[in-house]
């Protein structure tokens, strides 16, 4: 039986950072990922990573305050303080590992402006910061000789006596299921964007870790908080970085007006994402749109700056729309981008299930609360990836070995065989996924209503029913992506249900959650997290108070 002290699930930035830290503390660590680590969705983070460096005249309290304000006072301030205090050191450490951050004219690290923040504190590599960081983090994995199970797909967690003791996973290239025993497991599986159609997220972002932890008894929190990014490309929903606006781009409506004047007179285009997305959607709904979009205008930045700092988004807008950003504005609209909620953890990544940790987008500490600031997600992966790696290593050292029966694998094997044995009924995982995606995008988006959420809940119930008998065409074992889609769809449907029930519960508007019937923030009744737990009777809700340290809620305007 394969066995490790610490097993990290997911090869993105949170997972790799966790693995490196665990390895450094001398325990035996491995990473398992359903794609090669450098294919992970951390790649897609474009704009940068936030940190307040004191030698730049910045301070972490300002960063923390703006993160708290950005979260619409739903973020836990103890966790946000850790995030912002440790950020500076993390940037220096990344630089030492080899990330080729952009410099200023003195050769020191340079910064750019980002949304929801008064100071320019976003460190960056052109507009592919995530990719540049992920490549370097993977270099460090090669250097440290950490074992990576590439293209292994998680089917379940091994839970015995309420503790996590490893996983069952499918080796895709052979199609065999195996147990990998571990004293501690760190979930770092990223987001769940594919619940929505369209989304900026990659096809692999299917909420696997969130659903598996939920099934294993770990509660999820803040699931109703789904971020719509203000600038996603017309047609295919590909992301256009906030750095475009950070560098000075304008948002225009069909009349050519910089409409953000009306919604955020001080911060304009650099208000926080929930605010900008709602503003755009309002313009679109009130018919000041251009073909269902608003326009992002970069022309005044000049070709040189675009080429030097925003080359990737110029590449994608040329590729997909034939638009040269130096010549013409590009049509954009709000698109599903990020899940603020996730597996509830403490500041060391621990869930309530002993032996199970989580970090990155699949986790919720909660540092993002109701709305994540741009360039805080990369920071989240690095800070809480490191902390969970350290904590899991310590836990694994004190943990005595537990016997796991080889036969545990047969549960999952039987499930696979049952799916493959289903007869054709005209349905496919793709059809169900698309209906789910459209439903979520119609009803659980920028503007929500109780009625719409109710429709979504009913619709999801029907899709879950259909899911029980959905057949797959591919009956082989080697690299059977067909069966993986079916399994992923099961994860996504579970996640979708938790989003909708949490959103129905929150009877106010806060951060990314805007309910037409309750347009105001209601601190008296709703300054609390909604937690959702899997029980035999379905999702069960509970409340968790928000931790406040030094910032009392105030009116939020930009």
């Amino acid at each position, binding site marked *: 039986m394969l066995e490790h002290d610490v097993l990290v699930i997911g090869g993105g930035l949170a997972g790799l950072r966790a693995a490196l830290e665990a390895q450094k503390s001398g325990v035996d660590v491995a990473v398992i990922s359903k*794609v*090669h680590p*450098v*294919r*992970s*969705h951390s*790649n*897609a983070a474009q704009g940068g990573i936030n940190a307040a460096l004191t030698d730049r005249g910045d301070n972490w309290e300002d960063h923390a305050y703006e993160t708290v304000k950005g979260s619409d006072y739903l973020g836990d301030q103890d966790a946000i303080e850790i995030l912002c205090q440790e950020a500076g050191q993390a*940037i*220096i450490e990344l*630089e*030492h590992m*080899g990330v*080729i*951050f*952009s*410099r*200023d*004219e*003195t*050769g*020191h*690290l*340079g910064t750019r402006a980002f949304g929801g923040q008064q100071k320019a504190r976003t460190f960056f*590599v*052109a507009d*592919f910061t995530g*990719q*540049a960081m992920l*490549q*370097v983090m993977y*270099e*460090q994995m*090669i*250097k440290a000789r950490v074992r990576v199970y590439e293209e292994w797909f998680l089917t379940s967690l091994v839970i015995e006596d309420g503790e996590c003791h490893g996983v069952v996973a499918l080796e895709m*290239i052979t199609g065999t299921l195996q147990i990998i025993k571990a004293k501690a497991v760190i979930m770092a599986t990223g987001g769940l964007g594919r619940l929505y159609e369209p989304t900026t997220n*990659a*096809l*692999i972002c299917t909420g696997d870790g969130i659903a598996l932890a939920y099934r294993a008894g770990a509660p999820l929190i803040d699931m109703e908080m789904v971020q719509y990014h203000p600038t996603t490309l017309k*047609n*295919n929903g*590909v*992301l256009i970085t906030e750095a475009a606006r950070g560098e000075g781009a304008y948002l225009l409506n069909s009349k050519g007006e910089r409409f953000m004047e009306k919604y955020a007179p001080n911060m304009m285009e650099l208000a926080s994402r929930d605010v900008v997305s709602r503003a755009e959607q309002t313009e679109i709904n009130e018919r000041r749109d251009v073909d269902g979009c608003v326009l992002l205008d970069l022309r005044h930045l000049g070709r040189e700056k675009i080429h*030097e700092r925003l080359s*990737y988004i110029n*590449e*994608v807008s040329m*590729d*997909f729309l034939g638009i040269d950003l130096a010549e013409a504005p590009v049509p954009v609209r709000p698109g599903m981008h990020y899940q603020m909620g996730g597996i509830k953890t403490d500041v060391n990544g621990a869930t309530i299930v002993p032996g199970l940790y989580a970090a990155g987008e699949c986790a919720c500490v909660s540092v993002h609360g109701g709305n994540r600031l741009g360039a805080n997600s990369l920071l989240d992966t690095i800070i809480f990836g490191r902390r969970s790696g350290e904590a899991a290593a310590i836990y694994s050292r004190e943990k005595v070995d537990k016997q796991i029966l080889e036969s545990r694998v047969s549960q999952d094997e039987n499930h696979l065989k049952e799916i493959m044995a289903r007869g054709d009924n005209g349905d*496919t995982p*793709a059809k169900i996924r698309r209906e789910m995606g459209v439903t979520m995008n119609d009803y659980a988006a920028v503007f929500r209503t109780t009625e719409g959420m109710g429709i979504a809940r009913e619709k999801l119930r029907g899709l879950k029913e259909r899911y029980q008998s959905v057949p*797959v*065409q*591919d009956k*082989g*074992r*080697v*690299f059977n*992506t*067909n069966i993986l889609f079916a399994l992923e769809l099961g994860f996504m449907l579970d996640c979708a249900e938790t989003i909708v029930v949490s959103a129905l519960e929150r009877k106010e508007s806060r951060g990314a959650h805007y309910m037409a019937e309750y347009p105001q923030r209601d601190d008296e009744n709703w300054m609390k997290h909604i937690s959702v737990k899997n029980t035999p009777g379905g999702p069960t809700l509970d409340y968790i108070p928000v931790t406040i340290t030094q910032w009392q809620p105030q009116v939020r305007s930009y």
Partner: protein
Amino acid sequence: MEVTLNVKRFDPESKEQGSHFQEYNLEVEDHSTVLDALVKVREEVDGTLALRCSCRASICGSCSMRVNGHAKLVCKTKLRDVIQHDHKVLVEPMNNMPVVKDLVADMKPFWDKVRAIQPWLQPDGAAPEREYIAPNATMLHLTGVMSCIMCGACVSDCTALEVDKNFLGPAALAKAYRFLGDPRDDAGNNRLKMYGESGGIWDCTRCMECVQVCPKGVAPMERIMSLRDQAIQAGFNNNNGARHTESFSELVKHSGRLDELRLPIKTFGMFNFPALIGLLPVGLRALRRGKMPPIIHKSIPGAEKVRRIFEKVEGKK
């Protein structure tokens, strides 16, 4: 738009040996990519088709495969740019790698070679308390290679790798270049020595395929040429590759054109009989086809002008 994807299929579990082609007729949007079409097949027509893909935006590097015979990132490839007169598009897995199933290539050899170049920053001594100071222009220059997404397109279409499995290949060597160009890395000489060994920078045949197929403009071959330059500058010129390059330019400088008979002698050394005897079959074939260079090599008219060009260029360096 109507399209027929002609897809090379391979099922390792099938009783039938080898691969076969399968056609899929589809109706797609005018702006669709090859990936859009393949995903449509997988979701609506044939769930057994295996391929890798993830980000749909040319950043994850998953979906490299050959389209009409050349490696492409299919999420970045518009159907209308590759469709033939008969509406057909040929789709095959990457070359120079074993096939796992259908369009899925086994990239293990690719990653083994990336690992072989010691792909991590190797500074000398302890790190400074704050960041390393580095000129922005240098870092900007490195973003050109750092934008490599390890998709494997260049390796798929590398003509040197086709005949020389030992060759590190364009992707690994482009990554190698990134460390040589990084002012924080202090292992330069070790690296140049290592990359100059058999299978390294001198094995590239300069066919330009990697430059053409790279979807991110990394231009691996140009990086390899720069590494050669750096290796010679650093004095790592005691090998066939470096001697070949130096002799080539020396001979052209001398007579205005290449003395093809003296080139191997200067490259391998006058008394390196095994290597020279190894060239005999080539020589005999050339002789048979009337392509043997003249025994007595003559300078071209105006050879001294060529020499002056060389001197001018060398003066500029």
